[in-house]
């Protein structure tokens, strides 16, 4: 150690200030453990708040307002052509949404006595983190560390990304302009969410997906209504298509799509997934082990790594890469550290695609339940029969309920339609608490609401 180094000794050092990191830190502090968060940007919120969930949802809300206004023509209300001014829109997103939430997190940290140290944290060994802040070096000696370094957008292997016209999701959320022609590479949830935002703002969107379907792995019954909508909304969707090359040509980007030839775009959004940020943080100096595939940090149900002093939570620990999974894991890690009998044993991790219509699901899908060898019964409630759906002019939704045939236990739920992301909460409670279809069927659901769909589906199974 060099004289003059700053060395702090703490009980818990959390590496990364995203949802996993701050949830862990706050819970540690509540349980009386002295905790610091080390974050490269010296702020709490992480990718979720600054370059992911939150800003994308702000933009999706703008898209929803535009779409509603357009739809209002059907019932005789015409607002005229919308005029979009990007500066106030960006300012609203950045200050009124992201900034406000960031200040909120900072004040919670202060109230709980959690210090946020700015700088890049690198493990020197199993009890020391070196923190680089410009020229100065600071060290934190910890009793326990929680790795919560999250994930970052994957690049396209072999394709250059040096042009500023070729954006990842982070750059696209900055809303540099509204390109006339936008190529979206990747038909997963990020590509679909941002693709629909740009399409609503006026871009001609072309989507390319390598596999044969949008939202690979998601129940087709749920994807279909969204597919119908984006078929109309996007200029083109090329499934089963690879991008061979991308080149910046003047102020355009030329993309060569395999089997389709060259096409020019004003901007390109690469949304082909996210990868673990487990490199460059010195984990090799500890006993932490990474998975072969994906380089994720290996953890057990108590969020413990192979290194007894080091825990890990969130995206860096693997799929599904979702903020709310990270938050729950963060709390589990904190409680385990405090000697409590916590475990990340959750059955239902809800997933939401915030498109229009929204898609949400939790628990087992029909296919997954069958793969597990369970005999299931399935009910699909079409929103065409929902009073509430009719009043908002959206009868394209569906609520799908999967239950164990013999016990009647709710195994999983999928919903597509406006507000699906909110509606899935009830389903998650049902799955997590091992509720039976009868429990759901006899619970009174307010009328007329979209939530009745789950009750209707359960009633249908009860009668079956």
């Amino acid at each position, binding site marked *: 150690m060099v004289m003059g180094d700053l060395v702090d000794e703490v009980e818990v050092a959390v590496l990364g200030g995203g949802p996993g990191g701050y949830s862990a830190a706050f819970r540690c502090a509540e349980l009386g453990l002295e905790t610091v968060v080390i974050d490269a940007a010296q702020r709490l919120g992480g990718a979720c708040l600054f370059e992911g969930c939150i800003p994308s949802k702000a933009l999706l809300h703008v898209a929803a307002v535009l779409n509603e206004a357009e739809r209002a023509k059907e019932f005789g209300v015409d607002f005229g052509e919308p005029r979009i001014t990007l500066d106030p829109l960006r300012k609203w997103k950045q200050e009124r949404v992201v900034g406000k939430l960031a200040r909120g997190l900072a004040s919670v940290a202060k109230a709980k006595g959690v210090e946020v140290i700015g700088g890049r944290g690198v493990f020197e060994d199993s009890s020391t983190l070196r923190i680089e802040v410009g020229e100065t070096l600071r060290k934190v000696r910890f009793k326990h560390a929680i790795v919560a370094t999250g994930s970052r957008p994957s690049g396209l292997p072999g394709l250059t990304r040096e042009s500023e016209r070729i954006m990842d999701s982070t750059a696209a959320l900055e809303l540099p302009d509204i390109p006339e022609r936008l190529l979206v590479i990747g038909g997963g949830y990020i590509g679909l969410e941002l693709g629909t935002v740009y399409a609503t703002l006026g871009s001609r969107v072309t989507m390319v997906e390598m596999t044969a379907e949008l939202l690979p792995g998601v129940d087709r019954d749920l994807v279909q209504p969204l597919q119908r909508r984006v078929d109309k909304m996007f200029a083109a969707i090329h499934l089963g298509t690879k991008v061979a090359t991308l080149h910046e040509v003047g102020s355009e980007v030329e993309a060569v799509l395999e089997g389709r030839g060259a096409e020019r775009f004003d901007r390109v959004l690469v949304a082909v997934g996210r990868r673990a940020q487990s490199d460059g943080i010195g984990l090799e100096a500890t006993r932490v082990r990474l998975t072969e595939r994906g380089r994720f940090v290996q953890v057990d149900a108590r969020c413990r790594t192979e290194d007894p002093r080091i825990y890990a939570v969130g995206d860096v620990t693997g799929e599904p890469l979702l903020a709310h999974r990270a938050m729950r894991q963060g709390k589990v890690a904190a409680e385990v550290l*405090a000697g409590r*009998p916590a*475990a990340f*044993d959750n059955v239902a991790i809800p997933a939401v695609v915030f498109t229009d219509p929204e898609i949400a699901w939790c628990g087992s899908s029909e296919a997954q339940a069958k793969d597990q060898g369970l005999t299931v019964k399935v009910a699909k409630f079409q929103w065409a029969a929902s009073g509430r759906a009719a009043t908002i002019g959206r009868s394209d939704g569906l609520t799908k309920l999967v239950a164990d045939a013999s016990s009647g236990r709710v195994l999983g739920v999928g919903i597509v339609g406006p507000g699906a992301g909110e509606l899935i909460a009830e389903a998650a409670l049902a799955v*997590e608490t091992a509720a039976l279809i009868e429990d759901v069927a006899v619970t009174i659901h307010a009328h007329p609401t979209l939530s009745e769909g789950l009750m209707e589906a359960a009633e249908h199974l009860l009668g079956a």
Partner: protein
Amino acid sequence: MTEAEIVAVLVHEGDVIREDAPLLEVETDKAQVEIPSPMGGRVEKIHVEPGQTVKVGAPLVTFADGAAEQGAATSPGRSTTAARAAAAPTRAPAAPPPAVAPPAVRAEGPAAATPATRRLARELSVDLKAVRGTGPGGRVLDEDVRAAASGPRGAAAPATAAARAATPAGPARPLAAVGADTPPLPRFEQWGPVERAPLSHLRRTIAERMTLSATLIPHVSHFDRADITDLDAIITRNLEAARVKGVTLTLTSFLLKAAALALLRHPTFNASLDPGAGEMVLKRYYNLGVAVATERGLIVPVLREIDRKPVLEIARELAALAQRVRDGKATLDDLRGGTFTITNIGALGGTAAIPIINYPEVAILAVARARQEAVVRQGQIVPRLMLPLTLTFDHRIADGADGARFASEIVQLLEAPERLLWE
């Protein structure tokens, strides 16, 4: 399970075998297991051969003596009673032992229980998958988990932490009760004048608790000494610095820390015996009692979560707590929930003391006065400050070797005091 494959036949016709001797090796879709003989006797006929697949109920082995009864494979999955009976030392059919019986019908999917019930299962170290739920749709209820934790009920005997810690754990059952009625006292007046004084409430409580402990618990005491020269120097050097922070640094605070750290590594000394259940209750919290002498008698207030607190904090809390006790202002919570006790009689002198365990804890540590002694170090006689320690523990839970190791851990921690400051 409807069938199994015979992997090996471990006996020959004509062999005389005893009960529980290995008979066959079979492979089911769950596991490969050795089947012990359900009875002793002479093997008259073997009906199967390696590689053969046998249906449940098919005869395996016939024993000669008595009525020549046939062994038959029964289905442990469907009927554990049958499997149980088979293992009983009667002339019953040979069957895979109940240990291999799939515990519950549900094999796939997550355990059907609410998050709160799952947390309870973790607290009680019950494997939820091995519990048969009695709730609607087979949901595992809190009662099911508690029942599983307190003993086997039917097929679903859970593995508890205690059972796993010790080697083969049979079913839990109560220990035999030990009765000790007070015999009548002689008439003391016959030898001279006497006086009778009523017991104070505290005195009565102490009397009852000490009798309970000394009667119920087979006490063992282990003696050791710690060289606390370095620790004493640290305390002396930092007395003033601590006083500035309003803390009186005492040896007892370091003792508490050392004991808590040693308990972390020797969990049986942080336990209680549950004779009713036939189980050990391992506590995952480290709340240490400190014997405090008051004018009214002995009181043992409890400091919580010592393992997680720095020594300075322990010293601060200890001073405040001892003051509350002496002032008679201790709350009930100050006196409950201890897992281990320390008594320091050094201030009053003595070379050693054998304390009585603070029931229902497992052990208690007594220290007497530390003295400068002539100690041989590297062939030289040097003056060192030696602290006599006595660990008294419950022989039902721990043996002499365990006690020696635990005491030695405390001694080592006291002799390397920097470890107490770091942890």
